[in-house]
């Protein structure tokens, strides 16, 4: 790159804004390094898997017996890869959509400099486009070009170049549509929401979009079954954006069916509309940038909901109340913490939904009975799956620091006598944010599917298993939420993933199996509840007794034991 270009403000500002996407302000240098290691590990793993993807596709299409089978499989796989490309780009854009526009720091630092506002906005947009392009291009290399080339076999109807270009074009436009839609929603909120509520609305929308995308994962996993919409010329297809792009791909391949043409036009209009909305929002925000950036953060007045006597009761546990209010207020107002908690909880719900759908109908009575048994067990495991991910979500959100430099107020008022109250408040947070919603949500589903009596009977051991998990998660907890520095990924990635997977399998399968096993026999039921109750009591007592002697942590540290690589 020529020095003349690299020394221009455009290059400097674009590079600055681009780097900002990877800068994790809330972590210390050690924590950020740890995240980088974890990301490099994950990306390497995904790249290794992506090399296998074309080989898998080639093998699959080589075994097709008829042209009809090939066409069905191709259509399904085209839709699936389009969905995956849309999900990846949409998800990444939703993660960074708060950085769509220059923020207050940019405003305060850059405005006094002799550069125009136009330049600041243009370079920010350019950095955002470059960031999105990384994901659009990489997903389309794998799911666009590589899939287009590999999905051949002896029944292939079009040339390799045409297949590759058509699929890459459709998947590329689909991913651009997904990213642009997320950006346009965020842009509309920035323009239309009242100034006092802008930040909170923006954070809630971002969390909702990320959660919705995660909840769409079971639908993406079963995307191949929606290809039938195209074959049956269903009007419903116009409500499913990935199908628009599937229609566009068919048109690009040379099919001139009016229905497909209509879908292709819808896809192009969709992309154009999203881009126009983004441009309009950007222009509107550009014009009233200072008003938006230097907005007031007025909080709405909240009426008192609790009577005076309840406040007198609460006075007995002042510290617990302080910790609890600090936790709930932070979770309510901090976008980062909300996103982490809601995303992990949404993964739990998505996994639970996925495990409860897709059961076939057995051909023999014995097979039908086995499927019915497995289905009941999946329904009983559903709340445990939700607990597992929601508890992980709450725990991770509480671990992430807010502003480490502000923790002096807790260090100054640290009192060993209030530690039990702190632990009680964290325990309550986990129960109220993970266990109670998990039980309530799945109780309704279980009541509808398995019947109210079974749901009521399953609720107690399910809740007790949740409490066991809470106790297990809190066994070494010695920090005030959001106040301690955090070093994520202390274990090697593969080690951590294996442990999590093992814990998941053990908790879900054994837990679900025990509940199912105990439901029909009162003796077993009472025994299971008794054992679980005793386990909760013992774990809780041990934890509280041990915690009194351990001081609060304000600095996270790497484990003492060093992993030696033998050579």
């Amino acid at each position, binding site marked *: 790159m020529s020095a003349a270009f690299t020394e221009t403000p455009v290059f400097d500002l674009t590079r600055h804004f681009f780097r900002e996407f990877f800068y994790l302000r809330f972590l210390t240098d050690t924590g950020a390094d740890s995240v980088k290691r974890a990301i490099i590990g994950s990306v390497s793993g995904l790249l290794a898997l992506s090399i296998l993807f074309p080989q898998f596709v080639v093998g699959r299409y080589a075994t097709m017996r008829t042209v009809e089978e090939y066409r069905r499989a191709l259509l399904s796989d085209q839709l699936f890869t389009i969905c995956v490309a849309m999900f990846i780009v949409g998800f990444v854009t939703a993660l960074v959509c708060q950085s769509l526009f220059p923020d207050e720091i940019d405003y305060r630092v850059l405005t006094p400099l002799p550069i125009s506002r136009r330049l600041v906005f243009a370079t920010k947009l350019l950095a955002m486009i470059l960031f999105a392009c990384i994901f659009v291009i990489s997903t389309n290399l794998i799911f666009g070009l590589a899939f287009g080339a590999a999905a051949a076999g002896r029944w292939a109807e079009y040339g390799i170049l045409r297949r590759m270009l058509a699929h890459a074009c459709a998947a590329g436009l689909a991913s651009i549509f997904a990213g642009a839609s997320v950006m346009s929603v965020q842009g509309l909120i920035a323009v239309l929401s009242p100034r006092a509520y802008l930040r909170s609305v923006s954070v809630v929308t971002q969390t909702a979009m990320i959660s919705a995308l995660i909840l769409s994962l079971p639908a993406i996993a079963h995307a191949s079954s929606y290809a039938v919409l195209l074959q049956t010329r269903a009007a419903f297809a116009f409500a499913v954006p990935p199908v628009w792009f599937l229609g566009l791909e068919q048109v690009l391949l040379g099919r001139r069916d009016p229905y497909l043409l209509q879908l292709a036009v819808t896809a192009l209009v969709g992309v154009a509309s999203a881009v126009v909305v983004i441009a309009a929002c950007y222009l509107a925000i550009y014009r009233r940038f200072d008003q938006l950036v230097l907005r*007031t*953060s*007025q*909080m*709405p*007045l909240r009426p008192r909901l609790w009577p005076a006597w309840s*406040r*007198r009761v*609460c*006075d007995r546990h*002042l*510290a617990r*109340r*302080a910790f609890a*209010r*600090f936790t709930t*207020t*932070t979770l309510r*107002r*901090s976008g980062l913490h909300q996103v982490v908690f809601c995303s992990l909880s949404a993964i739990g719900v998505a996994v639970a939904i996925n495990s409860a759908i897709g059961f076939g109908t057995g051909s023999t009575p014995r097979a039908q009975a086995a499927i019915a048994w497995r289905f009941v067990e999946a329904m009983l495991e559903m709340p445990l799956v939700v607990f597992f991910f929601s508890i992980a979500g709450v725990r991770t959100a509480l671990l992430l620091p*807010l*502003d480490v*430099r*502000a923790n*002096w*107020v*807790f*260090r*100054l*008022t*640290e*009192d*060993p*006598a*209030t530690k039990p109250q702190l632990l009680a408040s964290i325990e309550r947070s986990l129960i109220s944010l993970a266990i109670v919603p998990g039980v309530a949500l799945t109780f309704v589903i279980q009541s509808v599917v398995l019947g109210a009596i079974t749901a009521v009977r399953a609720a107690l051991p399910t809740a007790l298993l949740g409490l066991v998990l809470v106790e297990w998660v809190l066994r070494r907890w010695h920090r005030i939420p959001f106040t301690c520095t955090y070093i994520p990924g202390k274990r090697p990635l593969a080690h951590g993933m294996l442990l999590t997977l093992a814990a998941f399998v053990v908790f879900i399968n054994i837990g679900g199996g025990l509940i199912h096993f105990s439901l029909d026999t009162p003796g077993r039921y009472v025994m299971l509840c008794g054992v679980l109750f005793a386990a909760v009591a013992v774990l809780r007592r041990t934890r509280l007794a041990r915690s009194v002697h351990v001081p609060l942590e304000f600095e996270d540290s790497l484990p003492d034991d060093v992993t030696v690589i033998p050579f």
Partner: protein
Amino acid sequence: MFEARGLTRRYRGFLAVDKVSFEIRRGEILGYLGPNGSGKSTTINMVVGLLEPSAGSLHLDGVSMSEDPVGCKRRIGYVPEEPHLYTHLTATEYLTLVGHLRGLARARLEARITRLLHLFALFESRYSALSAYSKGMRQRVLLAAALLHNPDLLVLDEPFSGLDVSAGLLFRTLLRLFAREGRMILFSSHRLDVVEKVCSSVVILHHGRIVASTVTSTADDTTGSPSLEDVFARATEQEDYTIVAKDILSVMQDV
């Protein structure tokens, strides 16, 4: 009385504070002066219990802070140098959090917070997040938080930074009256004029050691100079600022 005896702090071989000793009697405001990096903030952090001293001891009314850290911390109010606050909270929420952590009962706390917010001219902004506050407003919140539990020892690290003239005058008067009630104040600052007007005595720190101490009201100092500025310049071996200023100008004009 508050006493620091032989207070020392090492950071991986670097001696930040070296055998510092001073005392603050009831009714006294002790100014704690020194150039950047002299060890002022390290001393302050040890006094309020945010840092463990490597050696030496701290005593509040004869009680060792290492023996009863929680009891001593309950009697200390602290305003840090930088207004590090949880900026997603409102002023009321932040003060309530601090009050509850200090063990103040709700009814008394609510009344106290309301009155303090009025007196510190923050009542109108009580429902705004602290992120929307100016530096001076945040400083006022910190001062209100430090006074909330009626402390015996007030530790102030640059408390006037960001305050406007009227707020500065109010706090100066407040500190004098607070000390007159028999409380103790440790006042760390770069502002010599303010220290001279507020403090009854001053210690000057340089390279982690106390290099001078003076009583401001009588101007009776160890070096015999009448002005605190002169005492400070001599004790901390300050450079000739005219030469440095000329050097800066020459750098600016060097193209």
